[in-house]
């Protein structure tokens, strides 16, 4: 009862939904019909992007209302959310994770490091950007990207 009362009193804290983001929907995402199960892979990130992803799925930005949901295994996922430059230790696990995602699959590279290795480009432990390891469908720039940008990218995947 207490919980129900709290829910009624507090109401919605999420920001009102911004207008639908620009940009075209990746072709493989069209088959998802508005519901995307997301597996997040940290391929060598500094955890800045992770905090923003946490914000994107938190109560304020609430990415779940657009049909994106974090899951615990690539076997359950449609979308891979990859952060960080791909380190040498994570290159093979990232490939295996990509193989483990059932078709159709979408890869979203989050952050500058994931796009082009950012300020870690050329470091001895870095194998390359995400696109060098697995095919990337969408990129979210920023170091780190704002939660709103991540939500916008996920909305382009779900189409909602």
């Amino acid at each position, binding site marked *: 009862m207490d919980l129900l009362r709290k829910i009624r009193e507090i109401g919605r804290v999420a920001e009102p939904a911004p207008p639908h983001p620009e940009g075209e929907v990746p072709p493989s995402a069209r088959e998802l019909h508005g519901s995307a199960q997301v597996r997040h892979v940290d391929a060598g990130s500094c955890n800045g992007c992770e905090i923003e992803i946490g914000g994107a799925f938190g109560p304020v930005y609430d990415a779940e209302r657009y049909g994106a949901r974090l899951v615990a295994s690539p076997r359950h996922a449609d979308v891979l959310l990859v952060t960080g430059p791909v380190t040498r230790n994570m290159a*093979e696990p990232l490939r295996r*994770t990509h193989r483990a995602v059932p078709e159709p699959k979408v890869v979203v590279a989050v952050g500058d490091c994931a796009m082009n290795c950012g300020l870690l480009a050329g470091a001895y432990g870095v194998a390359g950007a995400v696109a060098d390891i697995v095919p990337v469908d969408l990129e979210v720039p920023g170091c780190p990207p704002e939660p709103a940008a991540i939500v916008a990218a996920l909305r382009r995947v779900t189409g909602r």
Partner: protein
Amino acid sequence: MNAIAPALAAASGLAAAGSAAGLVSPERLRPALVGVCTAGVGAAGLAAGGAALGGQRWSASLPDLLPLAGVHLALDALSGLFTAVSGGVIVVAAVYGIGYSRQGPAGRGVQAVLPLFAWTLVMVPAGAAVSTFLLLWELMAASSLLLVVAEHRKRAAVREAGVWYAVMTHLGLVCLLIALVLFAARAGGETFPALRAASDTLSPAVRGTVFVLALAGFGSKADMVPLHAWLPRAYPEAPSHVSALMSAAMANLGAYGLIRTAFDLLGGGPRWWGLLAVALGAVTAVYGIVQAAVATDLKCLLAYSTSENLGLVLIGIGAALLFDAGGNCALAALALVAALLHVVNHAAFKALLFGAAGSVVRATGTRDLDALGGLRPRMPVTTALFAVGALGAIALPPGNGFISEWLLLQSLIHGLAAPGVATAVMLPVAIAAIALSAGLAAAAFVKALGVGFFARPRSAAAARAHESPPTMLAGAGLSAAACVALALVPGVLADGLGRAAAAAGLRGAGPTGGAGAAGGGPIGGGELRLRLTELSGRLAPLWIAAALVAAVAAVLLLVRALARGPRRTGAPLWACGAGAPTARMEYTATSFAEPLQRVFDDVLAPEQDVDVTPVRESAYLVERVRYQHRVPDRIEHRLYQPLLRLLARAGRAGRRLADGSVHRYLGYGFTTLVAVLLALVVTR
């Protein structure tokens, strides 16, 4: 036409021929010749026992064969049942042994003793006088000892097992000797008819002493806790066909001796006999199966499971004694029939399991379950055979062990109304013990089958395994067929079991009907029907099995029909991105048993030893961690080791008496003589 005498004569002749063949034939032919002769001994025993179960009786007296006492032999339905079971197991083990001995124990001595051991197994139930019975019993013990130590040159553990077995079996013999000789001395004759006639005239103290000593003596052969210390050593170290003979045939004879002595010769007894037997049986059943559930040695697991099953038989015998003392003959007969049926079932599945385990040991060279696995594609027939045996051992339908345990539970539950406070406490405890042991048996055999045969090989030896030669498979296949037959149509044994219970002297048993039974024995018919005075129940194992098969087939068809999705594709197992899982990540026997071991922590008292070695420069940097974990047999630890230490100390103290002086030794002799003479003068 009495078929028993020619069958037993044939068994004796074939045993002699087999022993001779083992001694003189060339090594290449030896296993086959000995195996065929031994199988003949078994077949003859089966024929003799079958004839006795069919209602024939036979007795013979050969006064000139042995000096002083002569030889008295007799076969009634009770001894016939055990002769038949021994015979069946011998046929299986002999056929199996032909292939097994080719690369194993093919030496002259071992091959010559095997037919002799088989012959004693057939003949022990036929002994009808104290001297004859004990002579055959000792022959059986000695020949089995020689077979246990067959591989003593290969492993030091075999020698240790041999010493344990020799000492324990002879302590049992001493108990038996005292019990039966005391009985015979008080009865004034040593043939079984004389004992039977005189049993009512004995004082209760003598009868009680005879019963307790017989329980100890026969119990040590039937793996009764706490006299079981030899079995986790002797069964695993013996060659596998010998393990099968010992576990599935020799251990039963302990139960036979107890039934013969307690029911037939002593004619039943007071209530505490039954309570004692039920209590020991319950402890044996639970302790045996708990040890089996945590064992990681495949043959050790089977050995402890033998202990469990003989414990269940002992519960049945004790319950029969208890109900008989209370005057409820029909219930007593039911309990005894359940015990006898369990003897038959246990013999069938344990011969099969030891056979399959022997194939595994021969193919991989190891008995350690933690190093096995992946045998299903490599040894498909052996795996199927082991699965049939395991199904029999776990006391669930449609296995054969289920039927006898069901009967046993029925007899105990219907006997709950028996009077007496101790009875009212003991029977529910016994029921709980049977239920607990059935559940743990399922865990133990799921472990043995799942860890031992399925998944991936855990060692190179298991990966190189190959299927056994056809004779071994044929031997194990015979007992698998017996298991299936016993599971589906146990009713065919009903008349024979009823006759055996009647031969044990229970008035409510037997196909001719009796005081408590309404128109027939306690069980009968093609399906199992319980017939007691106030109730009747029935169980149709064939229909249960048919229903199970039909249900499984229906579910499979339904799944096949409903699951018409997109085409299936293969994919590597997801291991969190860490590559393919290796055999090191598999469940092992130890890890499977760990939760059980935690539950029974107080009973098992496992020992753990963590040894951390730091590097020389710093105590915080670890160079090596050694972790050791073992589950010792607690009874052996707590009961036998202190006793052995005490004996060793007494021996060292006694050494002072023998200092090498001839004069002192002469003095000892003289003093003893004088003391004996004085004692004679005083007592006369």
